[in-house]
């Protein structure tokens, strides 16, 4: 078994799997169960300022979308930050950290955008001996209407300002949690770095309406006939999160800034993918909310087995390994020519590849009377749609050898060449 011990901005944990700040980490009871189940760390559910806590709705807080067999693919929530008194949370944090010194315990914070509020809460958190703080600049619902959460995360200047206050008034490591509800994630990340953040974590949830009740004509979750946008998470958001993590990892200004990857991590494989794109560790919520805390055991065994197979002895060897391969479209090799190939002995003749290609792509699959499906190389643009819709993975993309002629274009497959030098590119022509 590979060693999964992880160190993230100086915070040690037995594995890189942390529970994200969310409903599962709102109470001592839950967090103790999580640590017993094997989670490496926990980001405690976001604390607000001292005083009367926020209140939550008393109707449904969650909405969901499903795949086959009612497998939950996406979850949204309209729950706010912790609705329990600050003192209770702080006491419980201290108690848990004392009993689980080897686990990471981070405290998520969201207080009004003034220096005194932040200074006051930071002092209280330091007393708990928690390992660090995470600044919740992400939640898109409820708190944003009060000038907190994503209302801060959408303004890079605010991010930088608050981060600077936090670093100024605390010695604790500081993670800035970013909202994806922006047009370019690099701005907020640069601001966090400029403010002195030790790391960023992303993504927080995405503004969303999961569904509409077609009898009541109200968005879900519905509270007394009305609904509001909530924060979307779960497996469905992973591709969005992976891209944002990669953008920060490969940006000149933020490259090297530690990242805690969040967004739809459900299996060890998801976690490994985040890490290869630059995440030092991952945070998980929806998978735990769907299946319970035990899912971490599969993540631990799966990542460990993968690392053994790859010969990695430390998770740091995985971190960022795919970042150099994330590039801009213009640098993709236009002389990389592939053709779909259907492995006949594995084909079950469902014809989905044919329907997809014939109706929506390039009419590059032939169907015989007896349902044998074959690729027409002279039509195939290698779009990969047939591969994606095949239920039994019997279609492969085969690369054409250099020097061979692409029967579709009649052109010889040559050396690496991209758009920047392509004759159809006006900029390329102008540069000559």
């Amino acid at each position, binding site marked *: 078994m590979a060693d999964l011990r992880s160190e993230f901005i100086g915070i040690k944990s037995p594995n890189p799997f942390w529970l994200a700040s969310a409903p599962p980490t709102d109470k001592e009871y839950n967090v103790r169960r999580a640590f017993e189940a094997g989670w490496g760390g926990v980001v405690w559910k976001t604390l607000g300022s001292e005083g009367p806590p926020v209140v939550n709705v008393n109707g449904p807080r969650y909405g969901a979308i499903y795949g086959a067999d009612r497998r939950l693919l996406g979850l949204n929530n309209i729950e706010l930050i912790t609705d329990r008194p600050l003192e209770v949370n702080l006491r419980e944090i201290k108690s848990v950290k004392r009993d689980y010194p080897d686990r990471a315990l981070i405290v998520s914070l969201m207080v009004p955008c003034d220096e005194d509020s932040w200074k006051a809460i930071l002092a209280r958190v330091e007393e708990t001996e928690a390992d660090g703080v995470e600044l919740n600049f992400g939640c898109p619902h409820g708190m944003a209407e009060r000038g907190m959460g994503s209302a801060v995360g959408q303004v890079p200047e605010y991010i930088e300002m608050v981060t600077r206050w936090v670093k100024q008034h605390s010695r604790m490591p500081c993670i800035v949690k970013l909202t994806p509800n922006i047009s370019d994630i690099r701005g907020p990340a640069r601001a966090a770095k400029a403010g002195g953040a030790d790391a960023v974590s992303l993504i927080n949830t995405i503004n969303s309406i999961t569904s509409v009740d077609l009898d009541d004509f109200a968005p879900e979750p519905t509270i007394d006939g009305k609904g509001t946008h909530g924060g979307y998470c779960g497996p469905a958001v992973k591709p969005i999160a992976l891209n944002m993590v990669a953008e920060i990892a490969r940006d000149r200004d933020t490259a090297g800034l530690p990242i805690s990857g969040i967004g739809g991590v459900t299996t060890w494989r998801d976690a490994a993918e985040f890490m290869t794109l630059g995440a030092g560790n991952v945070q998980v919520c929806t998978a735990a909310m769907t299946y319970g805390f035990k899912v971490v055991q599969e993540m631990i065994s799966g990542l460990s087995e993968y690392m053994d197979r790859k010969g990695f002895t430390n998770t740091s060897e995985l971190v960022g390994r795919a970042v150099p391969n994330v590039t801009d479209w213009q640098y993709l090799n236009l002389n990389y020519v592939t053709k779909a190939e259907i492995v006949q002995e594995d084909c*079950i*003749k*469902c*014809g*989905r590849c044919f329907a997809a290609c014939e109706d929506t792509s390039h009419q590059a699959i032939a*169907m015989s009377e007896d*349902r044998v499906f074959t690729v027409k190389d002279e039509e195939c643009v290698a779009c990969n749609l047939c591969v994606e819709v095949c*239920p*039994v993975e019997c279609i492969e993309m085969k690369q054409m050898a250099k020097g061979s002629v692409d029967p579709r274009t009649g052109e010889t497959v040559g050396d690496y060449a991209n758009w920047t030098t392509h004759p159809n590119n006006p900029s390329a022509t102008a540069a000559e």
Partner: protein
Amino acid sequence: MSHSQLTEGIVPGRLDPERYCTNFADVAPPLGAQEARIAADRCYFCHDAPCMEACPTSIDVPLFIRQISTGTPEAAARTIFEQNILGGMCARVCPTETLCEGACVRMDSEGEPVEIGALQRFATDTLMAKQDHPFTRAPRTGKSVAVVGAGPAGLAAAHRLAMLGHEVTLYDAHDKPGGLNEYGIASYKAPGGFAQAEVAWLVQIGGITAVENWQLDRKGDGDLADLLADHDAVFLGMGLSGVNALHLEGEDKDGIRPATDFIAELRQASDLASLPIGRDVVVIGGGMTAVDAAVQSKLLGALNVSLVYRRSRGEMPASLHEQEHALTHGVTIIENAAPIAIHGNGAVREVEFAYTRKGPDGLEMTDATFRLPADQVFKAIGQTLGDTPAKVEVAGGKIKVDGVGRTSVERVWAGGDCTHAGEDLTVTAVAQGRDAAQDIHHVLMEG
């Protein structure tokens, strides 16, 4: 009654009264909503789907399953009924393992097809439970069609003709409509009076007048000329009313009867405990009728039931699934054996068989023989066309029709088991009735 399974002879009440209920309960209980959703999720929505191709009525299986998976089973039912108005019965009695489910691409990948039959039942039951008839009649054409036989072919033809705006008179020789659906299939395949409920639902289309206890060519009823005089067209769908004989001495001994009679009597029995059954039952034949008779004998409390077929199991007309059904109910299947003598004094006591082998000129008897004790024997070696109007051309013992069901007589169509076309399956009969109706409509409206 103090009979048990050990009592000799043909006696009623071999089992505890409550056993009859459980023995003849629905053989394939319907899917619940949750089961249906999970089953529907397995469908790949194949292009030009093999299951649809395999269905004699060409039901759009991927579409109706997708409609179930999106929470609209009533729309799914409509998709089914558009092609097959007896989709409810077909969901229960079709040998799906050799039709749609046998063609399911999941057989290739997992050996487990999508449960198409069960899903079809889920959809059709859902709509029919609402007593909601999904079709309306076209404007009246003023044309009238006689349909002879209210079995699957006749019902399908009558419904389609009525839907197209014609007036239909539906003649049937029995007390109740339904044909084989009512009289010819095992009780546990369509319990709860489903066949009658289905007919009642089907005739909601309107324009169908039922005439019961009317038999073609029977004195006082009428003949083909009468029908042609009263109607613009005639559809013959009277099935097969004769039974093949064993042609053995002693065939008339007590205790020997056609399996179809036994199945019909059982279907109509109000109290199964009062239905007599032998202790040692021998069924001769290898089709679905043989299996239905054998299994139901066992379920009525027969101690030993043997199903004897003259060829190998692989050649049995009953599907593998049907054979397994018989075996799991304790029926002994003896293959490659044919009856050569019936023994007994007044009533049958034993049936003597010879093993068979394949010879150059077909099946041959060998010298190896054996006897099976039998107090009851059911013959299930095929059915024959009963009396047929002389003018209608018959080929190979069945009414000759072309691809759309036209017979040799003008204005007369035929479909279902009484014709030579297709397999003798409910679903095939439905397809033929429907297609003949479309052709009748075409001819009547052209003319």
